[in-house]
């Protein structure tokens, strides 16, 4: 195996440990703040995935939006609700073992099914240059995806309005 492919596999393995390990940390950690930090770790692993998949712009977006904004928001919410965090009773509900069973079963089913499909994988080399890719993305967002593009901004406006109304009446 050529050295660059070896490095790719190695990075993939490290990122998988980060992503899945972080994900497990999120769901099993008793301390909510630690959960949120594990979430950051997991999302950080996904950045590595995007880089491996040649989606550099999405990698940066992931870092900026997920880690820089959404995680901060989650940490804020946790820190604003100290009672939620300091709980020392069990963080799991009674049906947790059913949930675990569902999770494992679904994973097994998915892994088997996905493994049996013959994916029509395209030629790996056919990829636009990085800069061209970002500008293609811009053209796509304002061309064929113009409606979703505008709808996203309306959606965010709606979310903002709703969230302000909800958070405001408790602020005073």
């Amino acid at each position: 195996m050529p050295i660059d492919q070896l490095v790719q596999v190695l990075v993939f393995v490290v990122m998988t440990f980060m992503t899945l390990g972080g994900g497990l940390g999120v769901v099993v950690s008793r301390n909510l703040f630690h959960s949120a930090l594990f979430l950051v770790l997991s999302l950080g692993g996904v950045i590595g995935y995007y880089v491996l998949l040649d989606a550099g712009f999405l990698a940066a977006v992931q870092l900026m939006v997920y880690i820089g904004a959404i995680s901060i928001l989650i940490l804020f919410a946790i820190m604003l609700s100290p009672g939620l965090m300091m709980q020392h009773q069990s963080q799991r509900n009674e049906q947790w073992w059913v949930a675990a069973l569902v999770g494992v079963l679904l994973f097994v089913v998915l892994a088997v099914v996905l493994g049996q499909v013959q994916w029509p994988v395209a030629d790996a080399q056919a990829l636009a240059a990085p800069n061209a890719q970002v500008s293609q993305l811009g053209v796509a967002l304002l061309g064929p995806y113009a409606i979703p593009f505008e709808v996203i901004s309306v959606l965010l406006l709606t979310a903002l309005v709703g969230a302000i109304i909800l958070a405001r009446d408790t602020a005073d």
Partner: protein
Amino acid sequence: MDAIAAWLTTVIPGLGLPLAHLIVQVVYSAALAFGAPVGIVVAYTYMERKVIARVQDRIGPNRAGPLGVLQGFADAVKMLTKEDITPAKADRLVYNLAPALASVAAILVFAVLPVAPGVIGTDLHVGIIYVVAVGSLGELASLMAGWSSDNKFALVGAFRTVAQLVTYEVPMVIAVIMVVLAAGSMQLGQIVAAQDVPFLVTLPVAFFIFLAASMAEIGRSPFDLVEAESEIVAGFHTEYSGMKFALFFIGEYMHLFAGAGFIATLFLGGWRGPGAGDGSILAVILGWAYFAVKTTVIIFVMMWARATLPRLRIDHLLDFGWKFMTPVGLAALVAVAVALKIPGLGSPLLRWVAMLAANGAVIAVSLVAIAWAARRSGSASLRGVAGVKG
């Protein structure tokens, strides 16, 4: 960097070009990770002390070495040998990770900073958004430090720091979008290449927004109320001492330098200047010198502001970000976008004039808006600022 790699292949026989590139990259990243923090902190803390001392009619450090130039090293020894106290109630792991994350985040932005023609860690095609994104790791570090210290002041400090950082990240990103609009690329190399006329001239609104937002992001006076001693002790790093405090401190100065460096790169043409280029070694050194001078001038302006301006109050600070810089930034963004689509803008000169005109219009409109707001409000100081009588 490419030239050095090519040169290495001629010096060491049998060395392939990819491996030579790798060697150059490893050496350069080691320099960024170890040399740059030490050099920047020592040089700029010294400069800061001298500048502020001058402004305040003092002499500044003058004991350690000639003219006190060794002061930084003396501080480093002190930090290293100081006892490092972890509060008993702290969450140890998070408490130790926070300063490390702060310094890692501060070092990482240097990867895309073009310090001289051809000398850049990697010219990422998402360069400028990478900078903004990595900067947000600093917010995470502040929150981790504040939370894990389990101290009231640290918590309030962390909340304030992050509120301030997120508030100023918005206008900063808007200014960045304006630069990207004008340069047509997020790649820092291309942004520098696009500045035949520095963006300071064609996008003055973006420049001032970016300058003020960077000063706030760096968390320095007049935006340093995250560590307003009289209110919340030292902010989120109240409980930190010794080397862990030093890591936050290194992070702050790296951040200062990187902030000034990116202002120089985005708006002052970076390493560009007469005679600079990647043709010869001399031209590269000249380019590096231009970059260093521009960056140091920006840093001097920031230190000057720190020495002369009083600290803002937190509500004023947040208001200034949300209610002035963000709307002005959005208006300027739309104005520039519209101006660039005026039919018949063939030549670069016309594009520059159009951008400048758009910026001028935004400045005029915002001055009128300030005057209008000043008339409506009862605030005498606001009227003074806006030059409104009565």
